[in-house]
């Protein structure tokens, strides 16, 4: 039953570009898909390892910038002379994931030094500092003028220019990310992360090195968010400092919390609903301000009536 439903869902998703022949709507779906990947990565850190990091957009932005810069190539004169020639996009995307993963390692190490509310503040600040760097380091990022003409991904001599191709690319990465997280949480490593979130003192008493597994969660989560950022950069093909805006972290948190944090399907369900809802409301042709009010009300209702999220609430039936 469950397997049949999964297959049906995958079939619908895989054939979507064939029956959704509206380029704008497909664009919305692609962006939503990219955010779902980011939300899934946040869920690993927030839902499974229990760390409230509100700077998740930093990893997304670092992935976007690092991948774009590696693909475009750049020349620095200060603080030292560096010249990077343009790289193939698949390689630059890996560089974006690596850069984001490194930032995740740093944040993961930090989480044990700065606890609770302080960690939340530090993580928000981290993303904000990244944004300021992107705005002000003109030589590298061109600041508010943005990085333009970012090349699309090219694999086996085929460049991903068209929307349907990009859709399938995002879908493939999303499915891959989902499988990766599922493997992780159903393993010894995932249980160690869950144990840390549930009861840290008890976890260490049975020999779990909680620092190690938190850092692992942070690195995997950050690299995955970096991949989402890289996908975004090479799809939209322009990256400006606004990719570091706090509101994108909020969007990811909404997707995770409404869908059900600490569940595999949660960020997907929450992401589909709250990613596509603005378009649905627009289609109903109500005034723009009413759209956002309706969005907010629905969110409040979900959190109020289903405090653990949609997926756990459905499962309990």
């Amino acid at each position, binding site marked *: 039953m469950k397997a049949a439903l999964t297959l049906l869902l995958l079939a619908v998703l895989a054939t979507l570009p064939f029956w959704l022949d509206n380029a704008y709507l497909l664009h919305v779906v692609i962006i939503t898909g990219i955010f779902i990947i980011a939300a899934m990565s946040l869920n690993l850190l927030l839902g499974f390892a229990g760390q409230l990091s509100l700077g998740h957009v930093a990893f997304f932005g670092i992935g976007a910038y690092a991948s774009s810069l590696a693909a475009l190539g750049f020349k620095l004169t200060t603080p030292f002379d560096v010249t990077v020639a343009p790289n193939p996009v698949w390689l630059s995307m890996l560089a974006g994931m690596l850069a984001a993963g490194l930032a995740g390692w740093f944040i993961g190490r930090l989480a044990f030094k700065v606890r609770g509310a302080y960690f939340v503040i530090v993580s928000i600040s981290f993303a904000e500092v990244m944004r300021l760097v992107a705005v002000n380091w003109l030589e590298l990022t061109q600041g508010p003028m943005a990085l333009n003409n970012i090349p699309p991904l090219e694999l086996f001599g085929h460049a991903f220019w068209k929307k349907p191709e990009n859709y399938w690319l995002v879908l493939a990465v999303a499915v891959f990310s989902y499988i*990766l997280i599922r*493997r*992780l949480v*159903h*393993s*010894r*490593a*995932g*249980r*160690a992360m*869950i*144990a840390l979130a*549930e*009861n840290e*003192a*008890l*976890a*260490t*008493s*049975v*020999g*779990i*090195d*909680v620092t190690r597994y938190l850092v*692992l969660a942070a690195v*995997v989560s950050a690299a995955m968010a970096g991949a989402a950022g890289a996908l975004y950069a090479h799809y939209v093909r322009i990256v400006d400092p606004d990719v570091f805006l706090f509101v994108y972290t909020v969007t990811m948190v909404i997707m995770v919390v409404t869908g059900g944090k600490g569940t595999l399907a949660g960020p997907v369900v929450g992401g589909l609903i709250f990613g596509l809802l603005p378009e649905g409301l627009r289609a109903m042709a109500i005034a723009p301000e009413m759209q956002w009010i309706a969005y907010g009300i629905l969110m409040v209702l979900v959190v109020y009536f289903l405090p653990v999220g949609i997926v756990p609430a459905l499962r309990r039936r």
Partner: protein
Amino acid sequence: MSLLAVRNLSVRFGGLKAIEDMSFAVREGEVLSLIGPNGAGKTTAFNAITGYLASTSGEIVFQGRSLRGLNTHQIAALGLVRTFQKTSVFGGRTALDNILIGLHLRGRQTPLAIVMGLPYVAREEQELRAEARRILAFVGLQTRAEELASALPYGEQRLLEVAIALAAKPKLLLLDEPVSGMNPSEKASFMAKLGEIRSLGATVLLVEHDMKTVMGISDRVVCLAQGRIIADGTPAEIQSNAEVIKAYLGERYKRALG
């Protein structure tokens, strides 16, 4: 040979001397109880031994190896596993998951192998699950495997807690007031279980207030009062020790000795 040796251990919190110059040893295979009035330093000793607290001075040696500078999880990996005075389980997870977490040290999967989905990972998961079910059955919770730990009645949560510790395969099991708050029948079945744990070859260091329990199960008893050891001997010796009676009942009951 002693499995665990505590030598001249002192723990101070600022000016407060929680433990003062404490020395005792746990022999392989025995059940040693640590008793004493409230505030005597029993739980503090547990915390110092298992690395949750840094000791001010003194030495803790386990199987000939000093535990100084080791983290809690490293101490657990050596075979020193504790339970907590306040019930402590992974409340949001099923009983079976709780044991699976306890089996952490027995797993060999590396993160890379997990992510790649190598076949040995799945095989090991199967083995760990079977082992977790065996441990649940051992403490009599096999019918509760799929229930949330937080939904279990109190006595069963305490059993689950011990089962989690057992999963970590302790050489020395440290139990901090395991029967506190249990009703008499729960207590009795818990004590029977402790006898079985013993026969499996685990050495047990027990902190307990319930004297009936302590005297019934222990090979030796160490009595603490205000951070110092005041008596060390067999249950019978402790029961007739003047210092112990004084610590528990006060000076004027000394004549209760007769």
